């Protein structure tokens, strides 16, 4: 199997300078022409490549590095109707010091909560450097008017959110009203101010890899700082081939425009093994530069404990048990 199976041929010249972006997004027709002109995803090739990369054996020192890196790129998430300020404070404490018995464990990248709990999370994380991310825009369905979505976003930003995770209007995307989706994202981006914007594509509802590629480009053209796979409320969520298609999109987008965009798989990544497979995929698809909390995140909650158990297994030489880690 060729090494590049399933990958889009890399665009060599920056073929999409900023003034051309404005052209592309100016009308529904030009946007559709552009998105449908993207090369199709070779589904079999993409899945085979992801499966091949997931057989990479990462051991000893490389595994230690991968586990610490994986911990430091986690968006520790709680998005439940039953969330309380107490639970968010507990989560923030865990985010800053994931393993109380081992100070060498790095802090996670961010905590991710609903907008009404941003203030609590902000107070609990303080100056620790752990960012506070908030979902907004009528998460998880996104079924609300633009005014409501903007108010939701403004609310979270005013409460101090460093990052906003918005959902796209999948209904509009699937019927081909790309311009409406784009305008949504542009408006939310504006409401974010200095907060970084992650755009959730909800790949479980997009049906094909071609759609995932188009939605990724659409979000990036609209100014997303990050593209994120899923809300975590719909299955399937973050699978390796989907993440790969999105990584190819950010890679090609940078080649075309010079702007770097991050990727965040979320939902369904529960074991250290899964996380390490994603890191391999990042390294092999987008490149080493993306192996950084600024450009790659994993949205998860149970994953952290498994990483900590693996880490403890490597430092103590015995298998760890879940009884000795916090329940979250």
């Amino acid at each position, binding site marked *: 199997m060729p090494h590049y199976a399933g990958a889009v041929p890399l665009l060599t010249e920056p073929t999409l300078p900023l003034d051309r972006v404005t052209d592309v997004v100016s009308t529904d027709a030009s946007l559709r022409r552009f998105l449908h002109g993207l090369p199709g995803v070779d589904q079999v090739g993409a899945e085979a490549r992801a499966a091949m990369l997931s057989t990479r054996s990462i051991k000893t020192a490389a595994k230690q590095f991968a586990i610490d890196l994986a911990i430091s790129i986690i968006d520790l998430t709680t998005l439940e109707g039953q969330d309380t300020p107490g639970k968010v404070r507990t989560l923030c404490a865990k985010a800053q010091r994931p393993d109380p018995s081992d100070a060498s464990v790095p802090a996670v990248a961010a905590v991710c909560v609903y907008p009404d709990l941003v203030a609590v999370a902000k107070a609990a994380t303080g100056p620790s450097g752990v960012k506070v991310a908030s979902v907004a825009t009528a998460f998880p369905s996104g079924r609300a008017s633009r005014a409501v979505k903007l108010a939701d976003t403004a609310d979270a930003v005013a409460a101090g959110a460093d990052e906003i995770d918005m959902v796209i209007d999948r209904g509009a995307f699937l019927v081909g009203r790309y311009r409406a989706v784009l305008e949504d994202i542009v408006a939310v981006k504006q409401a974010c101010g200095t907060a970084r914007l992650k755009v959730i594509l909800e790949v479980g509802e997009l049906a094909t890899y071609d759609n995932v590629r188009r939605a990724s480009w659409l979000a990036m053209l609209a100014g997303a700082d990050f593209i994120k796979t899923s809300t975590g409320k719909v299955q399937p969520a973050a699978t390796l081939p989907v993440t790969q298609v999105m990584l190819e999109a950010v890679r090609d987008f940078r080649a075309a425009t010079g702007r770097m965009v991050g990727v965040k798989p979320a939902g369904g990544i529960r074991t250290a093994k899964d996380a390490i497979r994603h890191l391999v995929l990042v390294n092999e698809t987008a490149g080493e530069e993306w192996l950084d909390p600024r450009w790659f995140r994993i949205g998860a909650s149970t994953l952290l404990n498994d990483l900590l158990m693996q880490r403890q297994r490597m430092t103590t030489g015995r298998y760890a048990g879940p*009884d*000795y880690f916090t329940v979250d």
Partner: protein
Amino acid sequence: MSDVTPRLAVQKTYKLYIGGRFPRSESGRSYQVSDATGRFLANAAMASRKDVRDAVVAARKAGPAWSGASAYNRGQVLYRVAEVLEGRRGQFVDEVVAAEGLSVGTATSLVAAVVDRWVWYAGWADKLAQVVGSSNPVAGPYFDFTVPEPTGVVGVVAPQSSSLLGLVSVLAPVIVTGNTAVLLASERRPLPAISLAEVLATSDVPAGVVNVLTGRTAELTPWLAAHMDVNALDLCGLTDTALAHAAEEAAADNLKRVLRPSTADPDGRAEPDWSAEPGLERMTAFIEHKTVWHPVGI
């Protein structure tokens, strides 16, 4: 010249039993098992530490459903095991003859004792709580009960010489009370353990309640003993005193309950007399007593 082609015998591959499935060792290793006279019998899987890890995960996963089943239900499942065991007596007689070098007559009565032993323990499933539990008189307006609960995941090092009766005598008491087990079979006589696993797999015992590993006892025991997600250890089959001490030390890290190897002999090599009527000790070693105070009049 005979017109009948001699039948080509089908050789059996003895594999591990983890989570209700029969995988080969993760490591791909195997080792040769010989009969009592030293003749080659079969290849058995040589489990690695990762197989121990997988077995513990499977045992942990099976725990809630097995310990949550009613005592009556657990008893019925174990009776069913005895029924299936009874139907395969011939196979076990052959395997015990090969493994332990007994005469067919002795082996036949031994296998009968195995089935009887299993039935004996199955009967205790819904009776042990009455015997070791209690209603306690207290100086206050409370009902006060003590009830036995399973300890959790129990690592069992099976007896090295008694490959079937000894095996059943250490395994049955662990699972009858609702524990789940990771069992290291006798290193040189592992085949009856795998055949027993086949019986368990076909007789309503939920996947993961019993997991059987074959391989080097000295290699696997330290990983099992140090594993933080194992709650108790039965070191019955550890013939090496130094190894047993090391296992006890490792077990202390998370306060595992430990049933020590028999020390009837000064060098600790004697196995208990498995033909004797067992007491409750092997069951009570792996239960926790929970005492509940309930106010009267509410």
